[in-house]
């Protein structure tokens, strides 16, 4: 177990800069998720920590020791790859014991560690099989087993669930989380899937274009996104964003957009300032037509059982609304929307920052 710290870390490939001076401190035992769109540099960050990529600038330290010039094998990190990267010519047992064998550990210790890991991951019946004889989920578990037998300082996961189908992904998500709660090993997990990030992380770093947009707990990111990028990236379905102008009168303020007044809690900014107004689909209440809210027309109804997703139109602009339970609505119905002022966000359109 160990802490990890990135200090103004940079990475360039030739003249292309892909990571622009990222600083990040990961606490001992923390489950940290790097999330962002593909090509944002999150995998590069992980690979630099693993020692698979040179660090162009800044320092990376594991447990206070700078590892920039330390070989992968001496960093005491274990990694789970998206493609699993199991050795095809070795059985599950040999795959899991490989790192210990390279370390010239005695065979009893290897046997003990491998069977312990196999027990944790329910792989005992498969120890003599080859990777090609396993399903995707089992291969994924073997890859994890290979990591945990080493008892490393840090676990690294590089989009480990991307190759699994949706149902298995949810199951493995829970398994990885349970594993972390059991082993309490510092973990850095890379994904492009914000749902994975939200459900698994102690803290999330949202990475975009080689920079960290925001670093915090999942609910901090959800409740108070610092900019438009984080606001739109975190949460599913995505936040509705409208262009409008701030209207302040005395203590109360609202945003004028689409010819309507959208409530916000009093915030900074000046009267008449152009802004982006953001409200999550689950923070818009519904009421019958003419009950004083914002008039809208239903376009699409998507019943999910526990909740219903609606696409509604306000002055030719489509918004998504999520309502709990079932809504007895059909396309073409008219209703009125009442966004919750306490959960509305206002951003500066030029900088994207929260006002």
């Amino acid at each position, binding site marked *: 177990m160990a802490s990890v710290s990135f200090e103004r870390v940079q990475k360039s490939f030739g003249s292309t800069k892909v990571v622009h001076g990222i600083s990040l401190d990961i606490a001992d035992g923390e489950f940290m998720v790097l999330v962002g769109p593909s090509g944002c540099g999150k995998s590069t960050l992980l690979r630099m920590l693993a020692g*698979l990529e040179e660090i162009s600038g800044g320092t990376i330290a594991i447990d206070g020791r700078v590892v920039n010039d330390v*070989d992968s094998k001496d960093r005491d990190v274990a990694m789970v790859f998206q493609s699993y990267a199991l*050795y095809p010519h070795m059985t599950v047992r040999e795959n899991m014991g490989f790192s210990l064998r390279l370390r010239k550990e005695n065979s009893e210790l290897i046997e003990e560690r491998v069977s312990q890991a196999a027990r944790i991951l329910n792989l005992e019946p498969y120890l003599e099989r080859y990777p090609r004889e396993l399903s995707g989920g089992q291969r994924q578990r073997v890859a994890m087993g*290979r990591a945990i037998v080493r008892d490393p300082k840090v676990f690294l996961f590089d989009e480990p669930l991307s190759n699994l189908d949706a149902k298995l992904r949810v199951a493995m998500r829970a398994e990885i989380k349970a594993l972390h709660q059991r082993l309490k090993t510092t973990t850095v997990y890379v994904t492009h899937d914000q749902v994975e990030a939200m459900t698994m992380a102690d803290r999330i770093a949202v990475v975009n274009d080689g920079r960290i947009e925001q670093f915090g707990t999942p609910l901090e990111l959800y409740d108070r996104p610092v900019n438009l990028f984080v606001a739109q990236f975190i949460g599913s379905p995505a936040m509705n964003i409208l262009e409008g102008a701030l209207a302040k009168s005395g203590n109360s303020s609202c945003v004028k957009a689409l010819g309507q007044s959208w409530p916000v809690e009093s915030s900074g900014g000046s009267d008449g300032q152009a802004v982006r107004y953001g409200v999550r689909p689950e923070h818009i209440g519904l009421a019958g037509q003419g009950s004083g809210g914002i008039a809208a027309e239903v376009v699409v109804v998507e019943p999910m059982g526990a909740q219903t997703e609606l696409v509604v139109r306000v002055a030719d602009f489509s918004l998504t609304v999520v309502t709990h339970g079932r809504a007895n609505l059909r396309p073409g119905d008219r209703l009125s929307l009442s966004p919750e002022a306490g959960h509305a966000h206002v951003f500066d359109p030029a900088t994207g920052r929260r006002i």
Partner: protein
Amino acid sequence: MNRKLLREARLWLIAIPIALWTLIPIYHIFLFSISTKDSAFSGKLWPDHPTLRNFGTVFRQEHFYLHHFWNQIWNSLWIAVAVGTITLAVSTCAAFAISRLKVRGGRSVMNAALFTYFIPAAFLAVPMYKAMGAYGLLNSRWSLVLAMVTLASPYAIWVLKQASDKLPWELDEAARIDGATPLQLFRLVYLPLMLPSLVAIGTYALLLAWNEYLYAFLLLSHENTIPLAVGLGHFLASDDSPWEILMATALIYALPPAAIYYAFRRYMVGGLTSGAVKS
């Protein structure tokens, strides 16, 4: 249905001439080898009195040209195995270094090696002879081994490099994180996964050396050092060649490659094509 029939008919139209083209000379060799001396040129499709005596003559070295038969076939085998082994060792290391370790300048080395194929092997024979003379290796089996390794390696490196490129990178990275040194990566991960290609390339080099005539003829001249291919050539030195014995020897000489090819046929097709096209 008709279309399928037509396609099959066309396939047969191609296959039959090719099969005949290949098999008639072999049948001819076989026919000679079971004929007596006087009936060898009778022009019949099956001899009146087929005999295996020619083979006995060969095995007992009972003919003037065959006094060193066992010695020479041993030379052929020794040289072929040495060429196969050394080519494999050289080209596997080169392919690993170029493809997996990404050694600087590796590509240029490979291209330079391939470039040598622009020069026909026959043109290189004299320089090779001079070089072996300078090293004092003429008339040693090593001269032929070294020459054949030189000729076989570029292709071997190229094929193995292509095959190496297909192994997933993550395996190397996983092994590095697991704590493998480059040598351990080579021995424990790379070699086992490359096995089919290695068998194919080893067989290729081995057969190339087994069948070589020109360089063997040039570099080796003593009856005790020449391989059987050159020994067979000596039959043609006299005006009245003992064709039936020559062909019996040739048939024996052709059996080991056929056996090797048969044993490794699975690897040959897969291995050679797997490196040939980049998918």
